[in-house]
């Protein structure tokens, strides 16, 4: 029994992609081309340091500080860098602001372009064909699948990230948040609200 169990477990461990990636890492390590410890640091960076909390800080600051909001509108890369968020897949940032009239939605129809420095690694759905195919032709249908129904008259602007600009949506500040400081505001800013597939949370919704 125990042998069967071990054998089964062994098979699971070596599912085809796990085996394929392990083979690649092994070959490159044997050749001295990659340092497995570097891979650990990369993974740790995107698991613990770079993620949507970064973007939430940017948005909360823009809500609280009109000068910062103006800077973010004019030169998002520099404004975001002032908070310490720079680098890979955030080299050329644009911030797009939702208004009472217009809702912004970001997609990359051609691959998976996404503002890593402020949102971390993209979710699976963002990289998958259903979202990439439909965001540009049926954004309201897509938003409904996220539970978001916008008023009929709201204009929808879809930004297809076809070049190296990376887009951060600045959602509208929720009502009844005048008393909140930046830290409290940041807790209302979801990842999806910064892609455009959601809105910022109302206070008390969490």
């Amino acid at each position: 029994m125990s042998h069967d169990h071990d054998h089964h477990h062994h098979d699971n461990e070596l599912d085809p992609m796990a085996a394929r990636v392990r083979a690649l890492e092994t070959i490159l390590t044997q050749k001295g081309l990659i340092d497995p410890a570097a891979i650990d640091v990369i993974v740790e960076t995107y698991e613990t340091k770079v993620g949507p909390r970064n973007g939430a800080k940017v948005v909360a600051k823009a809500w609280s500080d009109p000068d910062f909001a103006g800077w973010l509108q004019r030169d998002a890369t520099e404004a975001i860098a002032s908070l310490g968020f720079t680098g890979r897949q955030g080299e050329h940032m644009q911030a797009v602001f939702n208004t009472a009239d217009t809702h912004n939605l970001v997609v990359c129809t051609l691959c998976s372009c996404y503002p890593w420095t402020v949102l971390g690694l993209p979710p699976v759905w963002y990289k998958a064909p259903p979202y990439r195919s439909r965001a540009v032709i049926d954004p309201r249908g897509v938003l409904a699948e996220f539970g978001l129904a916008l008023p009929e008259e709201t204009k929808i602007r879809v930004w297809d990230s076809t070049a190296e600009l990376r887009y951060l949506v600045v959602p509208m500040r929720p009502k009844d948040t005048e008393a909140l400081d930046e830290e409290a505001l940041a807790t209302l800013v979801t990842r999806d609200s910064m892609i455009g597939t959601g809105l910022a949370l109302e206070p008390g919704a969490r």
Partner: protein
Amino acid sequence: MNGPQDLGGQMGFGPVAPEKDEPIFHAEWEKRALGVTLAAGAFGAWNIDESRHARESLHPTDYYSSSYYEIWIKALETLLKRHGFVTAGELAHGTADGPGATPKRVLKAEDVPATLARGGPCDRPVARQPRFAPGDRVRTKNFHPQGHTRLPRYARDREGVVEALRDGFVFPDSNAHGNGESPQWVYTVVFTGAEIWGEGADPTLTVSIDAWESYLEPA
């Protein structure tokens, strides 16, 4: 190329499936796939445009049945073979047979934070004056190149308005094929839903792309 990656407006893929409290990685191998892809990118043997082209050059059947990390790994194997770092035989049996090509650099653990924080900016000076200005009406090219391009099919031969002049950027259609960075001005161009999708388009919809100058003609 009119490849499987060019998804805008395609139909039949079903609903988006947002996952509640989605984990950052869905399997241990995805973590290694991310790390190996970034570490191999640091070799300096290819650029982001060549790697995107390797991904979209997967057979459509393979592309559509693969998760994105699978697409990354399959394309990475192509790039590593093309540039002489590994052989098909090595990939088949999973161990190194001997040395291969020499990379420009090997990413060490201690250099990872600085490397990620620096990224790979691809803005470049462009000697010519920009041909277009915000407010100009433009028409996108109608073309179907065999090679890499970042003008999606749904946005070809469409009339729109230049909303912003961005910056000079490396031209992917050239850079992906080793033909140089040939930087051009990039513009954000906005189209109405009706211009792109015609009958039945959402009247509240506008779509923008970021377009290199040679994708555009005066309308």
